């Protein structure tokens, strides 16, 4: 981005006093000076941290004692594949934690599979509605976007009130459900909360995508005699594909890392029904009296791998038919 005047062919031999080169180099230097503050932060707080966490994932570490090399034992304990094998009543206790394989992973996958499609479809519908020439649509847009700019902790606390046994949700629908304290409902309550908070942002992204579609295409379609539904099916949705890819990817990553709502509302309970992978990492690293920093670090990398795999899969699915530009 700094090379603005280098279209002329360079000299055959590089010479120290070549003004062209010197200018280029000084421009590059300026660029690096500009980048320096960010690079410094990036290397200390991102690259170094990831590298150190990777090292820790092969150690046994409880913060009080120096880390001790453990090889793959941490990963073995996280995955705890023995827990899935049939075991006798009085079998010796397993030296591993089956919370990830039995609770956190199924919970997180379930959460993602429900929340991502729901929020994508819902925000798409909202975007369509907001794209029409409705009265007060600016007001509506603001209202729908409001939850996204509110702190997730605040919204979580509001939801705790709304969904308490004597709360407004039970009153309006005349129900008698103990939403957050019943293992059957607690997780769904958090899903509702998440769909509610993220739909606004996603709606905005879809709206931008919708308004990006050239009107000429719609006009051509109407000349060809396409009806409203056909336009939607064959023009709008295919044209929105890169936006859908973006929205689904962001949603996927967000869902796999869901943490703060759970931390505030249920702390993983009741009966682990809302324990997700991200919460489990936190619990192992800081909540337990036997701090399991190494095990938590190992799980972080497993989670990163899972997110990568899911993103690749959905990229395959969305790209499947027809080509997509860069998302």
């Amino acid at each position: 981005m700094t090379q603005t005047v280098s279209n002329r062919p360079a000299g055959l031999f590089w010479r120290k006093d070549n003004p062209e080169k010197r200018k280029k180099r000084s421009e590059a230097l300026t660029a690096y000076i500009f980048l320096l503050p960010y690079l410094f932060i990036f290397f200390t707080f991102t690259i170094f941290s990831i590298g150190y966490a990777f090292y820790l994932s092969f150690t046994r570490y409880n913060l009080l004692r120096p880390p001790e090399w453990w090889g793959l034992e941490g990963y073995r304990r996280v995955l705890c594949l023995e827990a899935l094998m049939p075991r006798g009543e009085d079998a010796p206790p397993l030296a591993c934690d089956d919370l990830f394989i039995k609770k956190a992973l199924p919970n997180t996958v379930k959460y993602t599979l429900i929340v991502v499609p729901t929020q994508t479809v819902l925000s798409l519908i909202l975007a369509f509605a907001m794209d029409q020439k409705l009265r007060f649509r600016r007001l509506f847009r603001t209202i729908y976007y409001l939850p996204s700019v509110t702190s997730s902790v605040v919204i979580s606390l509001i939801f705790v009130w709304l969904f308490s046994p004597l709360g407004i949700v039970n009153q309006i629908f005349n129900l008698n459900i103990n939403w957050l304290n019943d293992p059957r409902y607690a997780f769904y309550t958090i899903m509702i909360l998440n769909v509610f908070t993220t739909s606004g942002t996603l709606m905005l992204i879809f709206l931008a995508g919708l308004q990006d579609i050239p009107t000429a295409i719609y006009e051509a379609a109407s000349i060809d005699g396409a009806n409203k539904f056909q336009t939607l099916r064959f023009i709008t949705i295919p044209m929105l594909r890169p936006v859908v890819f973006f929205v689904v990817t962001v949603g996927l990553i967000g869902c796999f890392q869901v943490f703060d709502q759970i931390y505030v509302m249920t702390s993983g309970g009741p009966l682990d029904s809302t324990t997700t992978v991200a919460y489990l990492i936190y619990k192992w690293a800081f909540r337990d009296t036997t701090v399991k920093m190494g095990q938590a670090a190992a799980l972080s990398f497993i989670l990163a791998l899972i997110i990568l795999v899911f993103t690749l899969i959905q990229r395959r699915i969305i790209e499947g038919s027809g080509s997509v530009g860069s998302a």
Partner: protein
Amino acid sequence: MKTLLKWFVPLMVLSLLLAACQPAATPTPEKVIETVTVEKEKEVVKTVEVEKPAERAVVRLSGWAASPEETALLQSILLDFTVENPDIVVKYEPITGDYWQQLKTSIASGVEPDVFYMDIFQFPAFVRDEVLLPIDDLMAKEGVKRDDFIPSLIDAFSEGGVTYGIPKDFNTLGLFYNKDLFAKAGIAEPTDDWTWDDLKAAAEALSDPANNIYGLGVPADPGRFPIFVFQNGGSIMTEDYSDTLLDSPAAVEAATFYTDFRKNQIGAIPADVGEGWQGTVFGKGQFAMVYEGGWLIPYLKQQFPNTNYGVVTPPAGPKGEGNLIFTVAYVISRNSKNPEAAMRVINYLTSEKAQNKVLESGFALPTRLSLQNSEFLKTNPASSAIFRGALQGARPFVWGLVGSDVNEQMGKALERIYLENQAVDASLKQAAQVIRQKIAEVK
């Protein structure tokens, strides 16, 4: 143009650096940093006054900040200390937010304070990993005697005959009862001599499920349920914490008695009436009796000043008295450069004079035996009942290295009984198996 650029670039870099720093800090640590700098400034001012900066020993003291009033009280005691001990500088660095997370990370990076709060629940891990300094020699030098403290408290902070901490304050559980509801039901108020049968009979008479009024709060709380196991002659863990006794007959019987209150609708958990903590439910008059600690007294005074209540020691079970002790001590880090000065600070903070101050403010109960006859306890029967609890078969709230796992499993076992109608013995057996797994993991 070029000269302009020459100035512009470093300026931009500087402003970027400044701007970039902001989002990196989370609000909580920022606060802590602020306090530290303030203290440092104070120190500078003081050193100017004394003019002998080199000879003053610095002791950093850290603890959680429970409330502004409590922090102010501690600071006033520390001020008295500095006046009496001009050669020691105490830097008080309260930790807001997650205390254990911050303390453990500061230990990991070798910057922990000299003196810090230690909850009995976390104590075993800190002793095993040799974070704490044995203080018997220092105590002898400073003239602190073990016998001056309530035995169950000082013993809790000792291991293998070595003392690691001086208890700062404590709490036990008492049976809080609502006098108005007792009068309404027309039954006699509880006394210290009550038994399980009296408790059950009273709960039956007091309950009115149609109006959301229940006799006894029986939360799925590992900080309440164990006293029933103790009163039934059982225990949660073996003496050396190498195994759990949660699936023993004594514990199963106790759990059956405990959970039957809810089953028979003469007791309930706070969530049944839409609350998170039974203290609030008690204040609202929906639970006639709850087992809670001294912390409920100031809470009721503030939130529900009209509650007419009394406190007695927990009713005895078939095998006698049983209670839990929640206690916190001052400990010294092994890395402390001034252990002797640190001990003097601790001695001052736990002295009769300082503890009397804390006691009168109503924040916590004193750990010195000599204070059991204090004026305050004579005139405050509620606090007195909590204090007496420590002397009647009470055991510290500690389950060894896997403490949080034991707590979690105990809570879940009760939840399974309450929410999924699992059989009591099966549920406790399941919990015990997970705890054994956790013990195997630590080895």
